[in-house]
C-alpha cells in the first residue's frame, strides 16, 4: 500500500554475479555453506569472511543491504555468543566476576525496566541499544557495595575456550548470512524458482512434477502484494462500518477479524478461479512440457565458479585434516 512493499530483497544491478545462472548460484551456495561448516579454524573463518567481502564488493550491491540482514539476526547472534561465553567451561579461566544480588538491586532493576518502557512511549529508536545499556547497568550495580541485606551471591567465570567458540560461532553465522544474502540480493525470485525447477527436474523419474510446484510457488509469491492491497481495502471498508481493530473487547475483536477474513477468503477464491480460467484460455496444461522465454544456459563464468567452489571445498577439507 505504501509503495515500499518489496517482495524478496532483489537489488537491481549489473555485475557478474547478477549475470550468473541461478542454478550455478544455488549449487555454489549449497557447497559453500558446507565449506563454512567444515572449517573449524578461526583464522581461516576470518579469511573466508574476507573473501566473501570481496565477492560482495564485486556484486555492486551496497554493503548496507547485507548489514540489514545481519541486523535482523542480531538478537540471535548476541544470545548465542552470551550462552557460549557464560556456559562454556573449557580451557583456562580468564576472569572471574562476582555479583551480589541485594534487595535494593531488585528495586533498581524494576525502576530501570519502568524507565525503559516509558522511553518506549516517547521514541521507538535504538530500543536494542537502550535495553543493552540497562542490562549492563543492572549487572554493574550488583558488583559495587550497596546498602541493604544481600539475598544471594554468584560468580561468572569467563574461559578462553568460551570466548573462542563464541567468536567462531559468530564468524560462522555471519559467513552464512552473507552468503545467502548474496544469493537473494543478486537473483530475482522468478529466476530462483526457475533455477530450482530445473535443478529438481530429475525428480520427474520418481513421479514428482517440479514444474507444477515451481508454478505454484511463483504464483503464491506474485499474489502476496495483491492480497495485501485487497486486505487493506477490506480493512478500510470495515473501518468505515465502525469496526475498530484497536479497541473493544475480545469477543468483539474476534468478530472484527472474521469481518476481514471471510471477504479475504472469497476474494482469494474468486481470484484463483479467474486466474485458472485465464491460464487455461492461454493454453496452460498442468504437468505438460513447457518452453520458457528465458532459457537457462551455462556460460564459461558458470564453469569457472563451479571450479572455484570445488577448490574452496577441497581447501577447507584439507585445512581441517592438516591443521
Amino acid at each position: 500500500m505504501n509503495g515500499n512493499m518489496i517482495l524478496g530483497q532483489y537489488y537491481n544491478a549489473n555485475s557478474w554475479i547478477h549475470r550468473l545462472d541461478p542454478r550455478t548460484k544455488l549449487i555454489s551456495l549449497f557447497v559453500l555453506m558446507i565449506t563454512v561448516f567444515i572449517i573449524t579454524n578461526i583464522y581461516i573463518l576470518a579469511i573466508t569472511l574476507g573473501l566473501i567481502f570481496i565477492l560482495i564488493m564485486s556484486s555492486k550491491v551496497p554493503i548496507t543491504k547485507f548489514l540489514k540482514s545481519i541486523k535482523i539476526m542480531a538478537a540471535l547472534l548476541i544470545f548465542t555468543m552470551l550462552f557460549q561465553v557464560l556456559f562454556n567451561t573449557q580451557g583456562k579461566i580468564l576472569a572471574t566476576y562476582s555479583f551480589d544480588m541485594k534487595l535494593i538491586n531488585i528495586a533498581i532493576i524494576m525502576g530501570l525496566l519502568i524507565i525503559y518502557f516509558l522511553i518506549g512511549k516517547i521514541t521507538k529508536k535504538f530500543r536494542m541499544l537502550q535495553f543493552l545499556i540497562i542490562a549492563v547497568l543492572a549487572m554493574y550495580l550488583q558488583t559495587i557495595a550497596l546498602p541493604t541485606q544481600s539475598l544471594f551471591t554468584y560468580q561468572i567465570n569467563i574461559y578462553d575456550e568460551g570466548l573462542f567458540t563464541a567468536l567462531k560461532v559468530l564468524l560462522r553465522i555471519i559467513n552464512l548470512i552473507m552468503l545467502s544474502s548474496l544469493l537473494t540480493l543478486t537473483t530475482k525470485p522468478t529466476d530462483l524458482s526457475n533455477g530450482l525447477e530445473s535443478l529438481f527436474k530429475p525428480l520427474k523419474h520418481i513421479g514428482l512434477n517440479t514444474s507444477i510446484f515451481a508454478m505454484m510457488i511463483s504464483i503464491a509469491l506474485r499474489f502476496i502484494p495483491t492480497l495485501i492491497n485487497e486486505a487493506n481495502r477490506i480493512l478500510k471498508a470495515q473501518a468505515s462500518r465502525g469496526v475498530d481493530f484497536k479497541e473493544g473487547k475480545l469477543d468483539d475483536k474476534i468478530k472484527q477479524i472474521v469481518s476481514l477474513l471471510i471477504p479475504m477468503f472469497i476474494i482469494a477464491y474468486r481470484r484463483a478461479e479467474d486466474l485458472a480460467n485465464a491460464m487455461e484460455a492461454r493454453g496452460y496444461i498442468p504437468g505438460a512440457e513447457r518452453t520458457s522465454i528465458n532459457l537457462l544456459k551455462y556460460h564459461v563464468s558458470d564453469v569457472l565458479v563451479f571450479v572455484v567452489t570445488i577448490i574452496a571445498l577441497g581447501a577447507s577439507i584439507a585445512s581441517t585434516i592438516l591443521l
Partner: protein
Amino acid sequence: MGIKLSNVSFAYYVPKSKKKPIRFTLKDVSLNIDSQDEFIGLVGHTGSGKSTLVQLLNVLNLPTSGELDIFGNVIKAKTKVKLKPIRKTVGLVFQFPEYQIFEETVLKDIMFGPKNFGVKDAEKVAREAAEIMGITDLLDRRPFNLSGGQMRKVAIAGILASNPDVLILDEPTAGLDPLAKSEFLDFLKTVNEEYHKSIIIITHDMDVVSKYLKRVLVLKQGELMFDGSKDDLFRNEEIIRDCNLDYPEIVKVLKKLKTKLDVKLDEYQYNVDDAFKEVERVIGTNK
C-alpha cells in the same frame, strides 16, 4: 457545522529522509461542505485523488498537512480523536462495496454497521434501510448467492442503516444496469430532497452530473481545479478541456444544432424538457 478542509495535503508515503520529494496524492485542497442539502459530484481523471479525498472525509486517511474539520472535530496530521463517532456521521460507500459483505444473512450484514456504532434498535433500522433500498425480500437470503447489483444494494443499505449525516458514495453506479442506475440515482435524489442529507458521489458520467447534481468538484492530479455549480462548470471550456472532462449528451446535441444551424441557442440545458423548450423557443423566433 459541516465539513471544512483547509489546505489539506495528503501523501500515502512520506520518505524518512527530508531530501527526497514527497509524492502528494492531494495538494492544498480547501473546501466547505454543508451538513445539509448538498448534492455534490466529485469528478476527475483516474488517479486524480478522488477516492483518497473521500477516504480522508471518512478519516480512513489522516491529512499529511493542513486541517480537517468534520462536524467540529478538528483533525490534523497527528491528532488523536476518537474516529468512530466521525465515521458514524460521515458514511462512506466504497467502490465495489460487495466485497465487504461477510455475514450469514443479508439482515445481519446490514445490522453490522449500526451495531458497531452502538445504535440501539439495530434490527429495526436495518429493516428500514432495506425497505428504502427495496431489498426486503432478500433479508433472509445468504449474501454470497446474490447478484452483483443486489450485493451493492445490500452494502449501501448497510451504510444507510447507520444513519449518517453526510453520505459519500464512490462510483455507486459502476456495473449497474441502466434501469438500476437511474432508479438508484432517483433514490439518492429523494434522500437529498426529503431528508435533507448531504450527498457526495464520485462519478465519471457527465449525464449523471447534469441530471442530478447541484455542485461539482473537479480534481486534477490532486489539486482542486473547480468548485461550483454544474452550469458554471460546463460553461467553462478551459476546465472541461484541461481536466479531460466531457459534455453531457444533451449539451452535445444542442451544441451540434447550434453550430450546424447557426442559430442563437443556449446549449447549456440539463434535462430533456428544458432542452426541448429551448429548441422550441429558437424555432418559434425563426418562423
